[in-house]
């Protein structure tokens, strides 16, 4: 619909470590989606009566800013916000070593600044990067992407228009190295065969997004694929190099 191929992802950009006050953070742009995620923890769980004695708790919050959609939406968490909050937690929990932090919580806050379909997948993708940035021990990354059906065709990465006007939308999240699915939802009507096609498509999309996650995490240390990793690094895009030159 926006000129993409049926199996083409929207342009994606991920950056890690963008919020100095958070323990970990990430920012993702996927097509017109703009989402920022902050992670805190592990830290003392509040309220204490919800703390678990033998394992940590993952607390998520997904929220869409009032200016993220057109027309403006109310700032109060909607039913959809609450559902996605729960879904994010289900998608991320299997990847985190929560049992190492009894009585504590890991708090993930995802704020959607601009929305254009597939925000829950982009939020999960960004939340994973933020969790790694926070130094939370994880079994694997979680990467998410949606596939679905629009105009009779199985397509990858639905935008808002395609989601609202299409026949089906299937958010999908999985852990790439362990090869395990952590989220599968479906909204609409798909035949069993179409569901298989969607899953394979989403899997391919996820693999590409996984590369973007890795690059984002490595970029913080000046070690993107562009140059060979070395310490006196030409790849480091920070003021340090400039100062050395000025000397």
């Amino acid at each position: 619909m926006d000129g993409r191929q049926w199996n083409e992802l929207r342009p994606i950009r991920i950056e890690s470590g963008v919020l100095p006050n958070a323990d970990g953070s990430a920012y993702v742009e996927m097509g017109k989606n703009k989402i920022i995620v902050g992670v805190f923890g592990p830290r003392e769980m509040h309220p204490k009566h919800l703390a678990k004695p033998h394992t940590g708790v993952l607390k998520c919050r997904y929220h869409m800013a009032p200016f993220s959609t057109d027309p403006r939406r109310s700032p109060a968490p909607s039913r959809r916000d609450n559902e996605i909050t729960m879904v994010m937690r289900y998608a991320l929990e299997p990847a985190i070593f929560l049992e190492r932090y009894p009585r504590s919580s890991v708090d993930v806050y995802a704020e959607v600044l601009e929305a254009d379909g597939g925000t829950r997948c982009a939020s999960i993708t960004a939340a994973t990067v933020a969790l790694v940035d926070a130094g939370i021990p994880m079994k694997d990354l979680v990467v998410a992407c949606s596939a679905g059906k629009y105009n009779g065709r199985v397509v990858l990465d639905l935008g808002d228009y395609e989601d609202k006007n299409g026949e089906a939308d299937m958010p999908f999240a999985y852990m790439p190295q362990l090869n395990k699915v952590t989220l599968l939802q479906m909204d609409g009507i798909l035949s069993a065969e179409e569901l298989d096609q969607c899953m394979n498509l989403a899997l391919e999309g996820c693999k590409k997004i996984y590369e973007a996650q890795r690059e984002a995490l490595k970029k913080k240390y000046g070690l993107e694929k562009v140059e060979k990793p070395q310490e006196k690094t030409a790849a480091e895009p920070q003021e340090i190099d400039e100062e050395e030159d000025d000397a």
Partner: protein
Amino acid sequence: MMVGSMLSTSTPFESRDLVIPGDVLFEGSIRTGDNTYRSQGKVYATRIGLVEYGRGIVSVIALEAGYNPLVGDLVVGNVVDIELGTWVVDIDAPTEAVLNVPEAIDAPFRPDIVMPEILDVGDTIVAKVVDLDRKRTPILSILGKGLGKLEQGFIFRITPSKIPRLIGKKGSMVNMILKETGCNIIIGQNGRILIHGRTREQEEMVVKVIERIENEAHTTGLTNRIQEYLKQLKG
């Protein structure tokens, strides 16, 4: 069979490569070191960091990690609550720490002690972790030289995994900074650093240096570069 002598041929990475959680570090039998876990015959990384292949062991030097309190650590914390005979202190650990009255005034608790007069909510303290209780809550003490309430200076935070780099071998890095800037610096293992200088410029110099060390902690030759940087800043 011994990993140490066959690095690039039998391991997916080389020592000091950057790895990400989920990366397979080794397949087969090897001891699992820091920040790794084993599942179904493979060893994976649990944190982002630099992989190290040692003799018969693989580990990851984490670039980002939360603070894990150990007995003997010096920490900088702030009081968040007062309970009967105990101050609750936030030290950026997975759980809050406790400071009991006998560990603050070297005398048993008496009901007539007015606790806020000794330490109030919001106060910053430098303390030692003296124990971890059954539930792994850190127990603190401020009895001892250099410990207690902090009245001057400000707190700067860096990720706890980089504190050892800031201290340097036998304090080489921090001593150099102390000498060159004349500031008073207290480094908490929990990533909080107290900086107090006589002038604002001195304090800003220390902050710039610490930020740079945090960004380049994973590189070599850092101590010399920081020394050069300090000379530059002093002008």
